């Protein structure tokens, strides 16, 4: 009897947490996605202004999960070229096993324009608040500013656009989702 009890406890402790993220996950709880029409990554980025700041339900294939933190993943659209970053946010963390899986993710679409004014403000803040950051952090941010400036030179309008989705929940699906 004791052995059976111990086996039950052990299987619960390890078995329960061993489930892959198959079901919908939000902040660690099982929920059901609301019935909002899903949009492919390609369609979303074709008209970013229409979705800016709005809740979207996005479909695509996970091609990368941040290895260190699991705090973000890259979702690829149906054209196998267009990708967007999904931040874990309320979801907490993405498991590495998600790479190669098709998912339906719900979140808030964000669009950020990076221009010279944006970078000048960033550099100014870094100069003022730099003492609160380590030398490595300062160097990293300065490197990013420099990199963005170089990238901006190659664009026609001298600015860059950054897109991402702040994740709320997601669900893995077996097959490619037809839009």
């Amino acid at each position: 009897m004791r052995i059976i009890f111990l086996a039950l406890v052990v299987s619960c402790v390890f078995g329960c947490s061993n489930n892959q993220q198959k079901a919908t996950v939000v902040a660690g709880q099982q929920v059901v996605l609301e019935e909002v029409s899903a949009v492919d990554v390609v369609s979303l980025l074709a008209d970013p202004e229409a979705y800016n700041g709005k809740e979207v339900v996005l479909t695509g294939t996970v091609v990368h999960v941040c290895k260190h933190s699991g705090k973000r993943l890259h979702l690829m659209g149906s054209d196998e070229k267009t990708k967007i970053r999904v931040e874990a946010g309320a979801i907490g963390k993405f498991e590495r096993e998600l790479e190669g899986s098709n998912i339906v993710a719900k979140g808030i679409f964000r669009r950020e324009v990076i221009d010279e004014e944006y970078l000048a403000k960033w550099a100014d803040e870094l100069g003022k608040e730099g003492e609160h950051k380590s030398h490595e952090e300062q160097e990293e941010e300065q490197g990013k500013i420099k990199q963005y400036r170089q990238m901006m030179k190659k664009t026609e309008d001298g600015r860059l656009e950054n897109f991402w989705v702040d994740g709320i929940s997601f669900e893995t699906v077996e097959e490619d989702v037809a839009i």
Partner: protein
Amino acid sequence: MKINWRKINNILHRDVGYFFVGMTIIYSLSGIALNHIDDWDPNYNIENKRIHVDAKMLSPSMSSAEVDQLIDKLNVDKKIKKHYYPNPQTLKVFLNGGSLTMNTRTGVGFLETVDRRPIFYEVNYLHYNHTKFLWTWFSDIFAGGLILLAITGLFVLKGKNGLKRRGVWFVLVGILIPLGFLLVYL
């Protein structure tokens, strides 16, 4: 009637200690694992292997059946999830527990296998509080339990091994070590 505070203290220390044995091991193990996060991946055992195949086996538009054959040829015992081409000369195959990246021109590639570390994956999962909800409460209670264990631990014994004689030196050193680190690094 005189209340025997030491007896109550010792019973509390003993039973709270029994109750939180599992939690202490969970948080200690994951604490060690996460402390060395720069040196290893505490959740996954990752292996990378360089692979070379005849480039004729590869093309920039392989079907699922052809990719299946490639995986069989490489003796990879993992199921294929999906494949795609990040660029015309790179084939990426996602596997259940890893991925394969091949240069379709040269036939050179890398097989990455990713397997969960037994025990560590589970304890880290709990330590990171991915389950949220009730686990947040239970782990908060555990944290309170640790404080209770520390305080009641001070008063378990009296006499030459008690707090006032032998114990005080251990307590002082245990407090001075973290303070020393703060003084040096903060």
